[in-house]
């Protein structure tokens, strides 16, 4: 389970391509792919450099002018999903 103090690190070997307003990410090990929408793409962009979950949520809350709690509820499961597929690593503080 991700906590606010964890750091998110993108897997630099992940193969990603833009398709219109989506991002397509490939899991080479099993040949499956994940399509993420423009919000997910914005999160992917925001974690280009390692960033703490807390700072990520704060940044997105500012960007979308939304409460941090609400952003956190959306972002944490998304990050969990990315981590489960090996697209990011969660580094505990």
């Amino acid at each position: 389970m991700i906590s606010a103090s964890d750091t998110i690190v993108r897997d630099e070997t992940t193969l990603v391509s833009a398709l219109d307003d989506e991002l397509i990410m490939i899991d080479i090990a099993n040949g499956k792919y994940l399509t993420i929408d423009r919000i997910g793409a914005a999160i992917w962009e925001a974690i280009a450099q390692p960033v703490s979950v807390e700072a990520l949520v704060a940044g997105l809350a500012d960007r979308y002018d939304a409460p941090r709690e609400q952003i956190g509820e959306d972002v944490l499961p998304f990050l969990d999903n990315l981590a489960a597929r090996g697209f990011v690593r969660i580094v505990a503080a």
Partner: protein
Amino acid sequence: MILDDNEVALAEARFDRPPEPLRRFGIIAASARTGSHLLCRLLRQLGRGVALEYFYPSYRQVFEERWRTSSPGDYLSAIMRNRTAGGLCVVKCLPLQYGALRGAIEQVAALPDPFIIHLWRRDSLAQAISLRLAVQSGFWNFTPGPTTQPKDAIDIMDLDALRATRRQLVVDELLWRGWLRESGWPVIHVCYEDLIADRGASLQRLLGWLEPGAAPGPLPTLPEPPTPAALHARQSLNTVQRAELAAAYRAQFGHSDPLPDP
């Protein structure tokens, strides 16, 4: 020089070759509508291998029955024994066939000086339109008749379906890029748009890479391949109509940048 354009015919025994020493084994790693038919044709005309989609199931069945092979590795060895030209054996492979090809490669003790020619296309929207038109018409290349069953029910103007096709083609390309990275084999990237724009320059670059010790020289004069317009005439949209469809797609979905160079 093999001039036959019909890949179905190229599976016939008359195109088997007497054994000759194999210097290099290679794969053309392609996705649909990236110019692989053209590149295979050019390499065959230049006497470099008898490039064909040997792991396409229906071709494979024909070969396996004729060559009486007993395992995937045995099949690959038979390809090298029967389909080497100019010291090269070249297998064209699409993503769906890569697992089978890798399985065969793992059963062969050694492949001489292996290489991969990666064919890719920058404009995945034009690629997707081309693929849907080929599936609909059954005309994949300039052959006298369709080589697959035409699918008249396909609505070429269905933009959502076009987007799904485009997405799958981008996935295929990303898979290749991942597999190429994992293969450890030397790779040369050949872009469809460059191949079409300047066939001679693309071939010179490719031959220089395949045969680094060979003296560079002018390419022999090769028969002109059929033009894209000749193929379009057998399908339901001409060049102008394809551009109009692409414009309609962009108006609905926007259009991301072309695929980045590998």
